[in-house]
């Protein structure tokens, strides 16, 4: 009894709401509560490359450019830059180069940090050992300068860092490859490598607030990279500070403690449990956008136009590895937003008769709203171009057979059904490699793949199976048998899905192939072996996905470029597709601005893609997000990661709703206690009776 009573009594003294996971001091504060599921690996802007990490880094670090929060299609605007840089094409040393001259706004200051106090750059080891957080030291700041951006660009070639875009950037930034070799030679084990002492030809300092980046040839997509954390400023003092003896042993590194000029600063870094961002007191107070797209004003998204951001004081990210607690805490009001897992989809979403998703009455009653958006992704069933059955590298009649086979499969595999069954409709079947919303993607009738779909009554309808069977027969596999050998056609899907829960998926695949009387064999393996097979070109059919780095069609079209063949060059072309015409068009398209001519060339590339069908269909993922009514200024933006500054919370409303939803229910506890007491009494009486009982029954008197 005491075991239950003591904690209950303890809890009675805590608050009106007992299940609040946050300290009482948080109540009424403008704090945003969110989650992260994967432990971030890197918070160094040169090394980080996942959205799990950029949800932290992009609140702290500020690249020179950013995406407009409200406008669509996605539009680049200045962030710390004074204006959008226009590349100048010049001739230098007989080579054509693009020069991006970037001027940053003066007066921007770094967050308070110990690295900006000179005394903290030569700390005693014992002082370091006694630290529990770098923020225990005296804090300082200084103005952001062009040197900080230059320093970070040099860090892309740092021998001790793993920079995922180094390979790509070394192809463009003048002298970056040689610079990496020079730094490697200059680096001494255990010593801080001061990059200021090593000039990089591809970056030039014009003045304290202006710098130039010099690229080989033309690379218009570079402007998108300028909006990513790879090109955010790093103060040299931060590197120097964290390089002191004893810092790494305490996990005080630049990889874990970002130092930036952004609206927030990371003050608690416990990737196992909680990450806390607090408002940067030195932030310049960028105004909230005053323009958006149609409907934004009506949706209240322009109500804060011109007001200085950020609107919240703190953001607490709690690690939730399991979906059930996350979902329940969202429903209790302890997280301000949530995704929807498959398990909770039916509780959260109702699909209308027209197939449109909407909120369930339960969610609506709680003031929750839903926002959806199509991600800049593509998930596809790839055919390995090097495979003798489904590929196209062999040329001649065999290649033509394989092409018709792929086309037949592209019609027969019902991606609409796949999305309904396995993704609750959270996706859009793909008709080409480019994701919706990007330049090059065509909406409506002109956007459908005429090989697999036809336009009927204002929507795309998959062609009948007979069309697929006809193509299959033309490919030499009538009724799923090879007409040359009479043997049944067997196709293999290399996949990492192999648990008991994946049986339904495998059955679905089997059913799709069976519609053409093709035998289906899954080759199930682990992720490592799967990747190895892709690298060696040892797959036949496989399913992979891609998320774009930036909203340019080039970032999708390059996935089919022959020069990017995974098996040949370890590139991103996982299907090893190769078509000289496509590659030639890609070479033209990649460096063009978004003009009608570019659209025309892209249309031709998509046409080639559809005819060759190296991807046998696929889909673009759709995100469903749920947001409580007290969270304002929410608009899905799949390209921006620096969204935190735009959001606002209504803490009073949140507190009222939490109280209404979480009043403790005590009667079952009291009932349980009474029942336990009722059970103890007879046991106690029985015990007493036994204690008093004689060893043998007492004989009756006179017996």
């Amino acid at each position: 009894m005491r075991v239950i009573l003591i904690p209950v009594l303890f809890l009675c003294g805590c608050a009106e709401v007992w299940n609040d996971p946050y300290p009482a001091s948080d109540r009424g504060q403008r704090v945003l509560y969110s989650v992260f599921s994967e432990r971030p690996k890197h918070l160094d802007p040169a090394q980080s490359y996942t959205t799990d990490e950029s949800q932290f880094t992009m609140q702290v670090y500020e690249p020179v450019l950013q995406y407009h929060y409200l406008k669509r299609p996605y539009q680049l605007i200045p962030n710390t830059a004074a204006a959008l840089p226009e590349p100048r094409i010049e001739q230098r040393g007989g080579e054509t180069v693009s020069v991006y001259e970037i001027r940053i706004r003066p007066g921007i200051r770094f967050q308070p940090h110990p690295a900006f106090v000179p005394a903290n750059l030569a700390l005693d080891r014992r002082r370091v050992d006694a630290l529990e957080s770098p923020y225990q030291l005296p804090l300082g700041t200084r103005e952001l300068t062009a040197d900080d951006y230059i320093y970070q660009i040099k860090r892309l070639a740092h021998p001790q860092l793993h920079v995922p875009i180094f390979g790509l950037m070394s192809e463009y930034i003048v002298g970056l490859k040689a610079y990496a070799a020079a730094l490697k030679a200059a680096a001494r084990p255990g010593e801080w490598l001061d990059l200021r002492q090593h000039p990089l030809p591809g970056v030039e300092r014009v003045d304290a607030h202006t710098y130039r980046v010099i690229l080989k040839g033309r690379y218009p997509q570079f402007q998108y990279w300028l909006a990513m954390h790879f090109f955010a400023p790093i103060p040299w003092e931060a590197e120097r500070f964290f390089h002191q003896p004893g810092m790494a042993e305490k996990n005080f590194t630049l990889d874990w403690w970002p130092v930036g000029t952004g609206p927030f600063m990371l003050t608690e870094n416990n990737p196992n449990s909680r990450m806390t961002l607090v408002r940067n007191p030195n932030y310049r107070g960028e105004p909230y956008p005053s323009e958006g797209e149609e409907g934004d004003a009506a949706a209240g998204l322009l109500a804060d136009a011109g007001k200085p951001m950020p609107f919240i004081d703190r953001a607490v990210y709690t690690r939730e590895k399991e979906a059930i607690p996350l979902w329940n805490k969202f429903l209790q009001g302890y997280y301000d937003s949530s995704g929807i897992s498959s398990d909770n989809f039916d509780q959260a979403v109702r699909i209308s008769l027209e197939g449109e998703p909407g909120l369930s009455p339960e969610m609506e009653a709680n003031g929750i709203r839903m926002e959806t958006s199509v991600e800049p992704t593509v998930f596809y069933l790839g055919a390995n171009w090097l495979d003798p059955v489904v590929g196209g590298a062999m040329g001649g009649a065999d290649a033509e057979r394989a092409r018709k086979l792929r086309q037949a499969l592209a019609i027969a595999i019902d991606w609409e059904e796949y999305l309904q069954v396995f993704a609750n409709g959270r996706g859009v079947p793909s008709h080409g490699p480019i994701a919706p919303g990007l330049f090059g993607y065509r909406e409506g009738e002109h956007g459908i793949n005429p090989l697999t779909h036809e336009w009927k009554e204002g929507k795309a309808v998959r062609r009948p199976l007979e069309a697929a069977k006809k193509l299959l027969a033309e490919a030499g596999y009538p009724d799923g048998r090879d007409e040359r050998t009479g043997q049944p056609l067997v196709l293999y899907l290399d996949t990492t899905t192999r648990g008991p829960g994946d049986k339904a998926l495998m059955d679905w695949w089997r059913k799709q192939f069976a519609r053409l009387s093709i035998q289906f064999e899954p080759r199930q393996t682990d992720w490592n072996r799967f990747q190895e097979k892709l690298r060696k070109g040892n797959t036949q059919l496989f399913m992979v996905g891609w998320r774009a780095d930036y909203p340019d069609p080039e970032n999708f079209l390059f996935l089919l470029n022959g020069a990017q063949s995974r098996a040949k060059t370890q590139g991103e072309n996982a299907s090893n597709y190769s078509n000289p015409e496509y590659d030639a068009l890609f070479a033209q398209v990649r460096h063009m601005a978004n003009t009608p001519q570019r659209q025309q060339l892209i249309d031709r590339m998509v046409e080639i893609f559809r005819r060759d069908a190296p991807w046998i269909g696929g889909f673009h993922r759709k995100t469903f997000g749920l947001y409580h009514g007290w969270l304002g200024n929410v608009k899905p933006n799949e390209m921006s990661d620096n969204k935190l500054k735009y959001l606002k919370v209504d803490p009073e409303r949140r507190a009222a709703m939490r109280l209404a939803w979480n009043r403790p229910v005590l009667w079952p506890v009291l009932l349980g206690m009474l029942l336990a007491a009722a059970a103890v009494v007879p046991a106690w009486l029985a015990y007493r009776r036994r204690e008093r009982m004689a060893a043998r029954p007492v004989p009756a008197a006179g017996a």
Partner: protein
Amino acid sequence: MFAYIVRRVLYAVPILVGVNLLTFLLFFVVNTPEDMARMQLGAKRVTPEAIEKWKAERGYDKPLLWNAQAGGAGKATQTVFFQKSVRLFAFDFGASEDKRDIASEIGERMWPSLALAVPVFLVGLAVCVSFALLMAFFRATYLDLWGVVLCVAMMSISTLFYIIGGQYLLSKLLHLVPISGYQGGADALRFLFLPVFIGVVAGIGASSRWYRTLFLEEMGRDYVRTARAKGLAERAVLFGHVLQNALIPILTGVVAVIPLLFMGSLLTESFFGIPGLGSYTIDAIQAQDFAVVRAMVFIGSVFYIVGLILTDISYTLVDPRIRLQ
């Protein structure tokens, strides 16, 4: 006893080498150093040069077990196995593959693990022993029968069910405690109540039934009959004689577990968001972080050996007839 302990400690050395070798072989049968590099570097834009650089930085560019290119002792020492293993015996765990100091992580994470595991262990032991004694006392009655039925039912239910059911009932329906999360200090009590409660309840079935069997076996012995015959109260018989004599088999299971409490609970920590060593190990396995997996297996082995030695020592404390030689 001292000589015995020294001998057991020396026996531990080859055991630890063997465990380390086994961990190494099992890990690298499934993952190659290249797989590890790819896992750490991510799936996008990874070049062969980046992989080689990652391997070289962490010493995975050497042969795994035998370096045919090296001369003399270098054939064995210039290998991944030797370089990675030898420091473990000095309890130098190095850094994880994402360059976080492992000793520092363990130092941070052991407290949440202990804060969960110790109460579960102590309260669970007290509850299970009490319940088992109660069933033994009321043996061959309906209380005993239904107690055993309850135990069998409870031990048949998966721990996951207890966790999800407990979260649903106590937090979602009754709103009594937070569903998950963790805070340090006194605030931890609010977060630990539910996982501790569930941990205790989930363990009642199997442990109580086992202890009941031990108690019943003792209660059938002559000394118990003698104690009763001389008029001792049943309470004195149970606690003074039966419990004391049943302690040896209980200790066998219990003392060996004590050091392992430190290692945390994989499932409970994950579901309750407790940043302990159990979730640390799970994360490391998922991330193919060999440095952490190896360190945690090594520490687990050391603790298990320590637990077994403590068990032997505890025998001598509860049974004066036992001497360690």
